[in-house]
Structure formats: structure tokens, C-alpha cells
């Protein structure tokens, strides 16, 4: 039986409505806030002053670069590690798969706090192993931030990848093996075409999340430069009324960067990577 378009629309309506209200509403609110003059002026006046302030602030540029850098490394490394883990675990049973997914439901903040307890100078790792060769907490390069996101996002991508590395992919790998393909050729011709779309979409989610999140950089990240999220948080704390517009402008710029990345990746998927199944 084929579901009618109306039935599909009705089934999707609650999710769409929630997305429109929560995401669209928040976005509209942020846009409105960003164009509100810092000293107020009612609904009939608008100003570019918040945007000019943010774009002219060298700290914003540093925050943008820091966020881009941590998002890039956290995404690329977690994608690569997840690909390897998922490939190795693809024929394991559900117990191993569940164990691999264990960190997914653990909140980011808890992981960040645990990371501080373990990795900060004088922390548990220091006491057990002696001093650590690399400083992960409050380090200038944001290694601790990347490490926490690796721990959190790799299992998320593993779960996503293993959902497509099922029986069907194994059957195709068998077919390719019988038709003369060694491991490397199978990775190129079977595994990569199967995983590239979910990997790209999952990586996009990870990148967008890491790019704008603030709790992990706030907990383990450096005091300077801030991440985009911590920058926005800090400007609201400098002055709740005038800071809100600047924070909205900063986060909207971050959102624009994420949307541009999403469009680029989705364009790549639709143009170069026709759907695998």
C-alpha cells in the first residue's frame, strides 16, 4: 500500500510544526534582536549598529577562527575514527554495537567536567601517570575541546555509519571480492559509496554543533580566544540589554556559516553522489 501525499504531510506535520516554531521562531527573534538599536527604539526603528560592532570587534574574528578550527579538527578526526571503528565493527553483534554507542547519550557538559577532573594540571591523570606531556585544559590551541568532542561525536557517527554497513553492504563486498577486488578496491567501490552520504550528513551535523556550542569551550577551552558561543555569552554578560543584539548578530553570522557549509555539502551529495539505496 502506498501512503498518499496528504497522509505523509499529516504524519510529518507535528515535527515540521515544532521545527518551524522552535527554530524559525528563535531565528526570527534573533534577527529582530540583531537589528534592534542597542539603546532601544521600539519596533518601528532598526539599526545595523550591532552588526557593525560585532564585525569590527577583533575578538569576534578570533572567536570565529577558533570555532572554525575546533569544528574542523573535531569533525574530520571524529569522521575518520568513526569510519575505521564502524568498518571494524560492522560484522559484530548487537552487544558490541551498543557498547560503541555508549557515549552518545552522555551530556557534553558531563564529559567536559570529567575531562577537567582527569586532564587538568594536578588532575587524576597527572596523579596516576605523572605530568601529562600535553596540556589539554585551557590550552591555547583548544586541544581539550577537540578531545571532548572526539569522545562525544565519534560514537554518534559510528552509530550512523553502522546503520548503512549492514547485511546489504556485506553482500556487495562479497560480490566484489568474488569479482576480483581486494580490500582497497572494495573500500573504494563498495564501502565509500555506501557510507559517504551518511558520513557527510553526520559530519555536517557535528560541524554545525561544535561550531556553535559553548558549554565544552567554556569548561575546557582557553580563556582566550573564546569560541563563537562563549563570545556571544560573554557579550550578553557585559550588558544584558545592549549585549543581546550583538550576541544575536554574532550567532546569526555563525548560523550563516553553518548554512553555507550545509548547502555546500548537500550540493556535493546531490550532484556527485547519487543516492546509494
Amino acid at each position, binding site marked *: 500500500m502506498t501512503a498518499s501525499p496528504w497522509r505523509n504531510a499529516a504524519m510529518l506535520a507535528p515535527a515540521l510544526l515544532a521545527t518551524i516554531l522552535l527554530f524559525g521562531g528563535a531565528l526570527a527573534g534573533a534577527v529582530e534582536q540583531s537589528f534592534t538599536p542597542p539603546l532601544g527604539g521600539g519596533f518601528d526603528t532598526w539599526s545595523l549598529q550591532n552588526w557593525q560592532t560585532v564585525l569590527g570587534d577583533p575578538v569576534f574574528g578570533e572567536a570565529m577562527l577558533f570555532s572554525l578550527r575546533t569544528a574542523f579538527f573535531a569533525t574530520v578526526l571524529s569522521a575518520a575514527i568513526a569510519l575505521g571503528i564502524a568498518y571494524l565493527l560492522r560484522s559484530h553483534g548487537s552487544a558490541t554495537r551498543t557498547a560503541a554507542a555508549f557515549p552518545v547519550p552522555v551530556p557534553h557538559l558531563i564529559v567536559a567536567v570529567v575531562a577537567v577532573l582527569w586532564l587538568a594540571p594536578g588532575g587524576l591523570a597527572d596523579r596516576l601517570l605523572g605530568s601529562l606531556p600535553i596540556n589539554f585544559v585551557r590550552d591555547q590551541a583548544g586541544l581539550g575541546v577537540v578531545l571532548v568532542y572526539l569522545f562525544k561525536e565519534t560514537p554518534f557517527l559510528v552509530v550512523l555509519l553502522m546503520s548503512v554497513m549492514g547485511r546489504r553492504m556485506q553482500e556487495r563486498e*562479497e560480490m566484489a*571480492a*568474488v*569479482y*576480483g*577486488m581486494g580490500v582497497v578496491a572494495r573500500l573504494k567501490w563498495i564501502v565509500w559509496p555506501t557510507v559517504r552520504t551518511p558520513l557527510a550528513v553526520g559530519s555536517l551535523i557535528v560541524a554545525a554543533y561544535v561550531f556553535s556550542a559553548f558549554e565544552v569551550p567554556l569548561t575546557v577551552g582557553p580563556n582566550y580566544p573564546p569560541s563563537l558561543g562563549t563570545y556571544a555569552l560573554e557579550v550578553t554578560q557585559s550588558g544584558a540589554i545592549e549585549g543581546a543584539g550583538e550576541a544575536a548578530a554574532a550567532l546569526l553570522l555563525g548560523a550563516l556559516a553553518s548554512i553555507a557549509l550545509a548547502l555546500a555539502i548537500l550540493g556535493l551529495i546531490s550532484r556527485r553522489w547519487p543516492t*546509494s539505496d
Partner: protein
Amino acid sequence: MIVGPSGSGKTTLLRAICGLEELDGGRIELGGRRIDDLPAHRRRCAVVFQEPRLLPHLDVLDNVAIGLVAGRTPRKTRRARARELVEEVGLEDLAGGGVKGLSGGEQQRTALARALCAEPELLLLDEPLSAVDPNRRASLMSLLLDLQRRREVTTLAVTHDRAEAAELGENIALLVDGRILQSDQPQDLFQRPESEEAARFFGMNVIHGQVRSGLLELEGARLAVSGPDGAGTFAIRPESVEIGSAGQLRMMVNEAVYLGSYVRLRLGGGETTIEAQVPVGDSPAAGSIVGVSLPESRLWRIPRP
């Protein structure tokens, strides 16, 4: 041709030959060359699996040419070679298109072209017709036979369908519980099985009885049979059982099932149950008592193990 019931180990055997299953013991040779110590991609076998296993991100030609990728053949040459095979299996109109819209039969033809394109030393067919619409089986079957004869590729096929086995195989081996019970030409297997299991698998009636003075005592009747006196097991094909008033055996028609081109009768008498086939117009009604003859020339005595 390997034939056997589900779970008898047919697919496992095929997978072991092509290197997808490890051996517990023994060895596999192909053309005098030992291959069981080689990985799957070095055995030069091609398999047409039960399900076509086509790659959805490639078009028909690239799917067919997949066996040439490992040999580093340039893509243009691969596609040209694949086009020849695609034409040979009758899919030339679909050559440049994707594989998603193909019907089950077209997908299996593509899989067959892929296997032939790889120019294997051994072609393995794992129930190649099982996923195909019954109406299209006949054409795919004749294509398989035609290609096999024209290309002279050594082919080993497995199926659970005895009719398919008879049509495709020059030699058939019956595999039950991982053991070859009998290996023969189709006619021998269908007419002269060497075991009760083989007789039952090939659809024959199996009758146990005592033979005295060349006569089989069965449900009060005495039927002429060949062979020595004593306990004997006999097999007869349902289509060889004759129904008519002249029959020595009196049996009741327990079931009469119309099957299009004939009626299948299930006949019971005492402890003996026999299946017979009669033309559509001549079928007695269920519940009636009929005379049954088992012609001596058609009654095969199964050799003692």
C-alpha cells in the same frame, strides 16, 4: 548441478568454492590448481547470487564491468566489453541507465552479464531463478542454457527446484545434509534413485512390501515386480500410476487437487499412500474407490544400502 532441499548446504558449498566460506577440511581444486588457500578475489570464480547484488551508484554498464576493475582495464575498454555482454543478455536498451528501475529478471540478466564479463574459469549460479517472476523464468532459463553452451564456461549451479535442475544440468548431484547422496544424469535420478531419500526428493512414491515368488504383496493385492524375494522398497513416479477398473489395488481418493494441466490424486489404502497424476477430464471424485495399477516396467526397486 547441485540440487537439494533447503538447509542441505548448497549455498555453503558454493560459498566455500568461491572463497566466501572457510573450509573445515578437504581441498578445492579448479583445473588441477589448488584454490582453497587463495583469497576469494584470486580464485577466478564468478557467482550469480540469489539476489543480484548490483551496485546502485553505478549504471548497468559499470555494474557489468565490475569484474574488469581489478585488472586495471581502462574504463572505456571495460564499458565497451560490458556493452557486448549487455547486448548478449538482451538489455541493450537499458545499458546506459541506472539499475534501480530494473525488474527482477532484468537485474538477474545484468548479474549474469557481469559474471560472464569477468571471464571466470568457473561460473557459479546460486539459485539464479529464485528471485525472478515465474513468468520470466522460462526466458531467463533458456538464456542461461544458451550462454552456457555458446561460451563453454564450466558452470556449477545449485537449486532446490528439481525441475530447474533437470532443465539446466547435464549432471545432477543430490545434496542432503551436506552429503552427496547420488550424482547422475537427470533421467537416472528421476527414474532410478539409489535411495529412498533421493526417490522422495525427486517426487516419487515410495512403497515398502514383501516380495514372494516375484510378486509384491501390497494391501491384499499381488503385483509383479523384478528382483529377489524378501523385503523390498520400490519407487514409482506419480505420472506412471494408472487409475482404472482393471487395477489390482483398491484405494480411496483422499484428495483430488486441480493443478492446471493435470489433477493430482492422493490415494490411500490401508497403510499405503500413493500419489498419482491424471488428465484433467479423467479425474475421479474425492472419496471414491478406484482401481490402481503399478506397471512392473515403471516400478523401480531401490537398491539396498
